[in-house]
C-alpha cells in the first residue's frame, strides 16, 4: 500500500471512531446526566421520575430507622426540608448536622428514596454542591470550600 493510501485509511478510520464517540457521548449525556437541587428548588424545578441529587444538611434529630431497616432522615437547607429514606448503610462520615448529597428518583409528594448517599470525605471537605446551596441560602458558616 502506498503511504498516501495508508494515511487516508487512517484518517477515515479515526474520523469514523471520533464521530461514533461523539454520537455515543451526546446520547449518553442526555440520558445519564443527574442534576443537583437544593431542598428549596426540588419541588419547583425537578420533573417527576427524574434522577436527581439533593444536597443539604442532615437535620438534627431527624435520623431514625423504620421497621424494614431503611434509614430515615431529613435534608434541610434552612428554608425547606426534604424527608429522605435510604436502604442501606450510610457512609462513614454521615452524621446529623453534616453536609450530605443524596441521589435517587424524584417522586412528587413522596419521601425521597435515595439509592446513593455521599457524605463529606474528611473533616475539612464538604460536597461542593452542598456548600453552594448553603451559601445561596445564607446558611454557610465555614471558610472557603
Amino acid at each position, binding site marked *: 500500500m502506498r503511504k498516501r493510501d*495508508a494515511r487516508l485509511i487512517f484518517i477515515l478510520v479515526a474520523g469514523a471512531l471520533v464521530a461514533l464517540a461523539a454520537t*455515543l457521548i451526546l446520547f*449518553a449525556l442526555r440520558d445519564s446526566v443527574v442534576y443537583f437541587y437544593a431542598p428549596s428548588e426540588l419541588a419547583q424545578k425537578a420533573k417527576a421520575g427524574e434522577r436527581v441529587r439533593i444536597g443539604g444538611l442532615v437535620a438534627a434529630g431527624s435520623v431514625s430507622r423504620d421497621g424494614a431497616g431503611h434509614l430515615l432522615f431529613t435534608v434541610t437547607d434552612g428554608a425547606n426540608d426534604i424527608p429522605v429514606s435510604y436502604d442501606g*448503610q450510610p457512609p462513614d462520615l454521615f452524621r446529623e448536622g453534616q453536609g450530605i448529597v443524596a441521589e435517587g428518583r424524584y417522586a412528587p409528594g413522596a419521601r425521597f428514596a435515595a439509592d446513593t448517599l455521599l457524605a463529606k470525605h474528611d473533616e*475539612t471537605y464538604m460536597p461542593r*454542591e452542598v456548600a453552594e446551596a448553603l451559601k445561596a441560602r445564607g446558611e454557610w458558616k465555614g471558610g472557603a470550600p
Partner: protein
Amino acid sequence: MIAEFGAFLAAVALIASLAQGALGIYAREDARRAAAAKACAEIASVAMAGAFILLITLFVRSDFTVAVVFNNSHTDKPLIYKIAGAWGNHEGSMLLWCLVSAMFGLAMAHAHGNMSRGLWTRALGVQGWVSAGALIYTLVLSNPFARLDPAPFQGQSLNPLLQDPALALHPPMLYLGYVGLSAPFSLALAALIEGKVDEAWARALRPWTLAAWTCLTFGITLGSYWAYYELGWGGWWFWDPVENASFMPWLAATALVHSAIVTERRGSLAGWTILLAIIGFSLALLGTFLVRSGVLTSVHAFAVDPRRGVAVLVLIALAAGSGLTLYGLRAPMLQRATGFTAISREGLLVLNNLGLAVAAGVVLVGTLYPLAVEAVTGRLISVGPPFFNLAFAPFVGAVLLAMPLAPLLAWRRGDPKQALRPLWVAAGVAAATFVLVLIFGRKAWAAIGIGVGAWLVMGVASYLWVRWGRGGKRTLGRFFALPLAVWALTLAHLGAGVFVIGALTETNFRTERAFELNPGQTVAFANRRVTLLEVVDVRGPNYRAARANFRIEGVQARALSAERRVYDAGGAPTTEVGIAPSLTSDLYIALGEPSRGANAGAWIVRLYHNPAVHLIFGGAALIGLGGFVGLAALARRKRTALAPEAAPAQP
C-alpha cells in the same frame, strides 16, 4: 532548623533544575555544557532527596511547628503512618512529585544508550524544566516546610481512612507513573526540537514508557483495592472523577507502550508516538490538577484554595501548549516510515491506539462536562456509570476483540487466515462461555463481556502455543527458553482477560443486603448462614472500636469479624470490613451503627457477596507484572546487545 534546611535544599534543587533546563536545551553538541547539565541533574536529585528525607524526619519527630505536620500527624500515630503521612497530604505529595521528577532526571542523565548527544541533552533539558515548574509551584503555593506560629501542642492526625498499608504505597506508585510519563514527554520534545529521531531514541523511549505505565497500573490497582476493603461500600470502581484522573493517563500510556514498540521495531508511527507522549503527560498533569485543585464534586476530593488550581492549569498549558506547538511545526520532518497494510501487526496496533485514545477522550468528556456545564450555566450536574457504560465500553470492547489477533499477525503484511487458524479453539470457548452465561446468568451484557474475557484468555494461550511451536518441537526446555518479551506480552494480555472476566462477573452478579441483627441472631445470605455472635469493645493503638464477631456456616465455615472504629484524634467512625475469601468469591461484612428506638441492642449489618472479585485485582496485578517482565526483557536485551555474538533472535 530542619524545616528551613529542607526549604533551602528544595530551593537548591530548583536552581539546579533551571540550570539543567537551560544548559540541556542549549548544549547541542557541546560536550562541556552537556556534562554540566548532567551535573545539575545530579545536584537537583541529591538536594531533593535530602529535602524529602527532612520532611519525613519532621513527621517522625512530630514537629508541630510545621503546618503540614500539624495538619496531618499526631504523636499517637504508629511510626509507619507518621512516615506515610509525609506524602498523604497535598504539600508533601507535591514534594514527592518533585523528588520523582528529579530522580527521573538523574536516571536520564546516566542511561542514554547510544542516543545522539543533541537528543539526549535536550531531553535532559526538558526534564529540567518539568522539575523546575513543579518545584516553583511547590515552593510558592504549597510549601511543605511552612511554619506555624504559635506552635500547637498536638497534631490533627492523618485522616484515619488513609492510615492503611495499601494507601501508604498508593500515592508513591501513582506519582511514579504520573511523573514517569514526563520522561517520554522529555524525549518527545527533544525529538521535536532536534527535528529528528534515531533508533537509539526509539529504543530509549520504551523502558521509560513501560516503567511509567507499570507504576500507574500498580498504583491504580492499589487505590482500587483500598477503596474495596476500606471504604466499606463493597465496590472497587466508581467512575469518580478522581479515579478517572488516573485512568486517563493510563489509557494514553497503554496506547503509548504499544505505539513505542512499532516505532522501535519498525521505525514507523514516530509522529504518533510523540503525540501520545505529549498527550499522556498532559493528562497526567490534568490528573494532578483535578485531584489537587478541589474543582471536583467528589467523595475523594480535598479542599484547597483556587490559586493552586490556576497555577496547575498554567503548568498544563505550558506543557501541552509547547508540546503541541512544536509538534505542529516539526512533526512533518520526522517521517521515516516503512509502509504496512491494514491487516498487519502495525495495522492492529494502530487500531488499538485509536480505540484507546478515543476511550480516553470519552472519559475526559465525562469528567470535564459537569465542570463546563457549571461554568457556563451555573447548574450542578453529575455524570455517572451509565454514561461510561454506554460511551466507553464499545471502544475498549473493540480493542479487546482485536487483542488476541495482533501478536499472531506478521509485521508489515499479515495473512489473516493464517493468524486466525490457531484462534478457532479460543473462538469456540468464547462462544460456549457466552451461551452458558446467557443460560445460567440471564444477562446479555454479562454474557458478552465474560465471553470477550474468555476470548482473551484463550487467545493468549493460543499465542503462547504458536510461539512455543515456532521453529522446532514443543519440548519443555524450549518452553522455558521462550524470550522474556513473550512472557511479558502473555502475562499482560492474560491479565486483561482475567480482569474483564472478574469485572463483568462481579458487577453483574454481586448481591448485597442490609440486616438489623441482635447478638445470637442468624440470617441466610448467599448460600451461607451468618450469625452475629457478639459485639465487643476493643482498644487499638490509636482508636477505640466496636468489634462484631460472626460465625459463617454453609459453603464456607469460619469465624469473621468486622469493626467500627473511632480514632482518638477525633472524627467520625470508620468501618473496618470483614472479608471471608473463598475460591470463587468474597463474603464481605460491614458493621453499621447500633439500632435506635424499639430495636435497641441490635446492629445494622451489611452483607455483600462479591463473586470473582479476586480476578479483578489479580488480573490488574498480572497486567502490571507483565509490564515488570517487559522491563526485564528490555534490560536483558540491552546487555545482550553489548555482546552481539550472544544475542538471540528477537520474536
